[in-house]
């Protein structure tokens, strides 16, 4: 179902249709927030709050003027900056803006889903595929992945880095 249809269903009183948007964007948004907050639990809190704020302000959103994902990510980014400042963590807006680009949903016309999925399926050894799928597709944290594999959290980071290097080569 396309985004405009979902939004018009929500506007028409079908509040449960919002679940489709949460389903569609939560993994990417959590990863985006994790990059900003440097903490998974805080990132999930910020992502959840962003979904709530977006829902509450949905009547101010014009689907003809922006993509929902761009608007949602902006809400999350602003909220993350506020939270970092509240916690008196160093929050240089320029640094954050540089990070924002790394995980922002990118131009939707550049689509190569099938090639990426096949490249992930070919990752060797298989635990590289498992960690990539777990983190980027199933929305699991490093901590959860580490517990499932019985390995230190740092090792999850190492496996993901190596897997990404393989993917970059495969997809270059």
């Amino acid at each position, binding site marked *: *179902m396309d985004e405009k249809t979902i939004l018009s269903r929500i506007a028409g009183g079908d*509040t*449960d249709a*919002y*679940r489709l948007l*949460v*389903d569609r964007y*939560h*993994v*990417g948004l959590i*990863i985006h927030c994790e*990059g900003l907050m440097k903490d998974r639990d805080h990132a*999930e809190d910020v*992502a*959840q709050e962003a*979904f*709530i704020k977006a*829902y*509450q302000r949905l009547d101010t959103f*014009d689907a*003809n*003027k922006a993509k929902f994902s761009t608007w949602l990510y902006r809400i999350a980014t602003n909220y993350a900056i506020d939270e970092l400042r509240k916690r008196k963590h160093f929050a240089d*807006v320029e640094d954050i*803006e540089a*990070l924002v*680009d*790394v*995980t922002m*949903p*990118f*131009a*939707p*016309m*550049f*689509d*190569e889903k*099938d090639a*990426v*999925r096949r490249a*992930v*399926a*070919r990752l060797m*050894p*298989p*635990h590289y595929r*498992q960690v990539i*799928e777990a983190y*980027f*597709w*199933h*929305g699991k944290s490093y901590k959860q992945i580490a517990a*499932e*594999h*019985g390995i*230190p959290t740092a090792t999850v980071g*190492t496996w993901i880095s190596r897997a*990404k290097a393989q*993917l970059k080569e495969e*997809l*270059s």
Partner: protein
Amino acid sequence: MDISCQGAAKGGVIVKKPTIEQRLIDAQPEGYGNQDFVARTMDAIEDAHRKTHAHEIFSRTIRTMDVNKKETFIMKLKQLPIGVLIALAIAGIGITSGTAYAAFQAWQSAVVKTGKATTNQDGRSEVPVDIAQCTSINDEDIKAEVSAGSTLDPKEIAKLLQARCEFDEVIAYGGKLSTEARLPLTSNIDIGSSDVVTDYRLSGYSITIPSSAYSPEKTLEITPDTLFIARGALIKASDIKPTGDSIMYVSRERWTSAGVGAPQVYDPFGASVLAIIKMSLPARYYSQDMQAKMSLRVPCEGNPSDSCVRNSAGLMIYSYTSDETDPSKPAIPQPIIYIEGRITKYNDTSLQIKTSSGRLLTFKTPARFIDSFNEYPKEHFEDVKLAAGDMLSIAYNGVASTGNQTIELKAISYMRVLFNPSTKVGENVKY
């Protein structure tokens, strides 16, 4: 995080391609995700909604109290003669005995119809597509075109689309099984969907998959829990030939290593198959090579009178990055809309494209945009050079139009040059 994706070229042109993180997130299959998070978030939203609308809900409850109740199923049953009730009870037993088969529907088969082939503005054969029950392709007003240089018969397009939908459904189903299986804590168990295979050997106890470039020969145990599926519904094991059918399978395998970081070795012990899926079509329809013989076209977002390639392959040749802290780099106003067209001409300050509907759009560019791009091909990607006739995909701030237009540089978000779909790494044949 990978931030090595950006580079700048002469003349103010910024070349940028998506990061590997963005590409992975974008490729997330339907049905994947953290359902605990989704449930928690929806609970929080519903809670907030209830608090905000408590008064409204209360009023609605009072209003509905006196409304006549609808006749329920049980109320209707009570009015039936005893003979009819007995007949219904017998029918009910028959229905419930087949529940295991009837209740299982992992996915629905896509229904694809194509219309009469015509030749489009690029001289390619094109057919209108009507597609239903396909999770991964649900756009409206779709057209499918035969890729340049391909000898694909347009009559084959419906089957190719059916195959694409079915393949995606099986991949998503494998992901669901993987999530539901909740991997044990200390073993390297791999649960996932295979590619389409035909040279398997199936017996009542196991399925053997020949070796491939990425895996040794594997024999996977068939257990009492193994599911046999076709078109999303359960079938009998005997409905699948001992070899030669097109199948995908979801397996549970173990890979062990001598220690963290050491190479993993396939461990045949305990390898089993969770599901074997008999595919609806011959294997060739699912292959990447065959799928690359076709592209889909949909109305351009924001420019519905023109069509754009869906899931296009391409190279970013210009991308504008705003900077909130720099007044000279303001954000591009919304809405951002999209257009595609071939370059008809260019000069030092602009380029013109012709869209699918024949409109001519002129885009202002940085000084010597194309010449400067072509002077530094190695610094860009894969030695691509730009020329008249290239197909561009452009995102810009504007409003839908049906006439010719000139778009200022400050309104352009990005420009990409499009390539034909290809299965070969580094093969960039312009669209």
